[in-house]
């Protein structure tokens, strides 16, 4: 499953987010986007040393500042891969032709090829359609 799909599946659920500065935000996930920017509500903020605490009604966290986040393990079953954002801040790629599961994940992770023909061939390969070149007689 894609990390951003997991994040999307976590909306309206408790989430723990640790930032790169060591501060820990524990709250309900309201919203997120493809940059991993998030909106939380009813947040408990804990300082790095674990000595100071804050209660925040709502907060916005920039994705680039996140070190990691934790969610309920049950969420793994609720992740829908087709509506997730594939790839980090790179532009969205069009989904491959009717592929599923691991093949889809593998296909999304492969780098884009140099030639258009090679990329079309690869897409067709992924969807297990075989292509036979039509024969052309040289003029």
């Amino acid at each position: 499953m894609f990390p951003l799909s997991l994040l999307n599946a976590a909306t309206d659920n408790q989430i723990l987010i640790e930032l790169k500065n060591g501060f820990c935000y524990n709250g309900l996930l309201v919203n997120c986007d493809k940059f991993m920017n998030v909106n939380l509500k009813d947040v408990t903020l804990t300082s790095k040393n674990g000595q100071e605490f804050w209660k925040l009604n709502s907060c916005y966290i920039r994705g680039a500042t996140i070190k990691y986040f934790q969610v309920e393990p049950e969420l793994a079953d609720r992740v829908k891969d087709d509506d997730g954002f594939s790839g980090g801040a790179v532009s969205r790629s069009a989904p491959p032709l009717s592929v599923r599961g691991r093949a889809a994940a593998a296909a999304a992770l492969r780098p884009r090829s140099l030639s258009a023909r090679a990329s079309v061939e690869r897409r067709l390969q992924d969807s297990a359609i075989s292509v036979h070149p039509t024969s052309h007689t040289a003029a």
Partner: protein
Amino acid sequence: MAAELGKLIDHRVMVLTNEGRTIVGDLAGLDQSINLILRDSVERVWSSDKGMELVPSGGLSMLRGDSVAAVCELNADADAAMDWEAVKADAIPRLKP
């Protein structure tokens, strides 16, 4: 590059973070930015005066790619054969930017 790591999905991996933390978990997913989803992850804390300690990190966690220094496939048999609690080691320093 991420495609190579895709082969490790559903395997037990060890992740070295930029802070020098060692986290072991089942790789449940990743993307092009090497954001990683780990299931049942445990942090291995090393110190030079006492043996290795384990700090569980919760069932399902996601590590952001820009904090990841290395992702390694764990050899489950070799790992189980080691008596890690007896091993003393210096903590890995944080990566200098």
